[in-house]
């Protein structure tokens, strides 16, 4: 098992290196001169001096090596061209806001997604099932940023209950969290329902019933643990998607989180900030996926034994 975790971690580093290489190369060959971004309207000679100062006149490979060395061994993504502060520090400052939204949305996803899925699955074919699934389908289909805009119109403009955008107290986070979680709740409910239906007719469920176990114990103790596998994957993917997709919702609500940072960096060609935030997202996704795989092996002893026997 330890060997497996080690292999996974090593592979994670390789993936991140590759991502760093790709993002650096893409940005290197994108038209547009960072020196001109730094000093708009400067003379040609000044630009040359600036390019030299920033190390932009060095060969591609030297710059790439420098970038990889600094970002992986020193965790230094350089200074933002626009804000002039270290990217790493700025990411750290903004991360809590993105995580508050992401984690709360995840909790809602789990709580409502699982219970709605179990509710629908245990009422298979009845109207409760159809109604839940129909509503889930609607929320999967509606674009989350549009739902967010509509909520702003209703709750902020018409009713005046909640602030429309920005950050402040807890009130400012209510709408972003709800908008972020709606789609995930629907996906989780559907996934849970179909997993539940799959284990519904398994022999061990029939056995549990025939020995006279109460229905809710059958669901909780026998069906859920076995239905959990695909649900874990969905949740893991959902979480990394929420955080990596935070750009859109943060844009709608003007929340200065990591996503909006990346978006602004892209729009202003702030290369160190783009590279830093993309690497951050890649690392985050990789970590979540690693966690999912580990949880997998703990939930399902079959997988655990497979790894310990083979490797």
């Amino acid at each position: 098992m330890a060997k497996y975790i080690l292999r996974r971690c090593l592979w994670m580093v390789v993936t991140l290196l590759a991502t760093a290489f790709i993002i650096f190369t893409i940005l290197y060959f994108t038209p547009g001169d960072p020196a001109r971004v730094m000093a708009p309207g400067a003379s040609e000679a000044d630009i040359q001096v600036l390019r030299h100062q920033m190390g932009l006149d060095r060969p591609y490979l030297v710059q790439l090596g420098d970038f990889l060395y600094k970002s992986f061994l020193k965790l230094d993504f350089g200074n933002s061209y626009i804000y002039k502060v270290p990217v790493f520090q700025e990411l750290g400052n903004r991360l809590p806001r993105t995580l508050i939204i992401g984690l709360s949305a995840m909790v809602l996803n789990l709580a409502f997604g699982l219970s709605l899925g179990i509710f629908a699955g245990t009422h298979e074919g009845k109207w409760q099932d159809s109604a839940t699934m129909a509503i889930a389908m609607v929320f999967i289909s509606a674009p989350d940023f549009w739902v967010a805009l509509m909520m702003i119109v209703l709750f902020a403009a018409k009713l005046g209950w909640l602030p429309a955008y920005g950050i402040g107290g807890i009130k400012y986070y209510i709408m972003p969290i709800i908008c972020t979680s709606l789609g995930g709740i629907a996906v989780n409910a559907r996934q849970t329902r179909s997993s539940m239906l799959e284990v519904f007719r398994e022999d061990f469920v029939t056995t549990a019933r025939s020995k006279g176990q109460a229905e809710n114990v059958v669901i909780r103790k026998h069906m859920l643990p076995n239905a959990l596998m695909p649900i874990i994957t969905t949740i893991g993917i959902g979480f990394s998607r929420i955080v990596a997709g935070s750009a859109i919702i943060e844009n709608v609500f003007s929340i200065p989180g990591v996503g909006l940072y990346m978006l602004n960096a892209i729009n202003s060609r702030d290369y160190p900030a783009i590279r830093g935030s993309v690497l951050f997202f890649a690392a985050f996704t990789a970590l979540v996926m690693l966690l999912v795989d580990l949880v997998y092996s703990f939930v399902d002893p079959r997988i655990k034994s497979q790894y310990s026997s083979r490797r």
Partner: protein
Amino acid sequence: MITTQSVSTGSKPLKVEKTSLFLETLQRMVKGPGAKVGTALFVLIVLASICAPLIAPYGPNDMDLENMYATPSAAHLLGTDGLGRDQLSRLLYGSRYSLSLGLSASLFGALAGVFLGSVAGYFGGKTETLIMRLMDIWSSLPGMLLCILISATLGAGFFNTVLALSIGEVPVGVRLIRGQILKERAKEYLEAAEAINCSKFSIMFRHLLPNVVQPVLVNVTMGIGMVITMAAALSYIGLGVQPPTPEWGALLSAGRLHILNYPHLIMFPGLVIAITVLSINLMGDGLRDALDPKLRS
């Protein structure tokens, strides 16, 4: 095509009905009420986008400066925008961009995925390891993020947007096809094809592919809806297709500035996106049920 024969019993002469697998699948697909509604809606939307010049009351860029920001009325069913352009007409014309973006991006992504997945699955060994590891790296960035990046790098425009949208779809297709091929690889018909010296290309795409393509079909269908949403999100944050193109996301992006005063500029484009994606998802659900071998008796 595989044919099925239904033979009637009794004294009547044998009546053999031939239906193609395609038709049979379609019939099975529209069995559920959800899939029926979805398919009907989708057909309607596609028809509307094809016939946009015929049914749109105004041109997509006709300005009516006396009726700026008009709320829905008899003259302008869904109101007008800041230049007095009729929103219904813009939505109708916009459906051409949004639908073709969704269709072409998910098709393009699926084709690339199917090709790479077939190569990986069929050849195995080092080729497979290489392709699958590449896919791991490829999908280490979630789709939306990759999409934003590529779109920002390539710049605006229809084809750049198609490319940006399709790139995230590739690894999914590769994994699906490879997984299916791994199950199929040991079967006898492949051995037979190899024995009669079929070329690798022909084995892969003539013999193997038709047997493994079903999950990809479902995935592509579901993907179209997702891609349309992603395209809208891209235009909304100022990348992808740009105004004044009446693409749905671009309409949302243009309307957001006036969201508090003229919410109808946001409401209708989003509603249209939601309905379109809903119809596609319902169809995808139906298709999955129709193709799922577990449900087949």
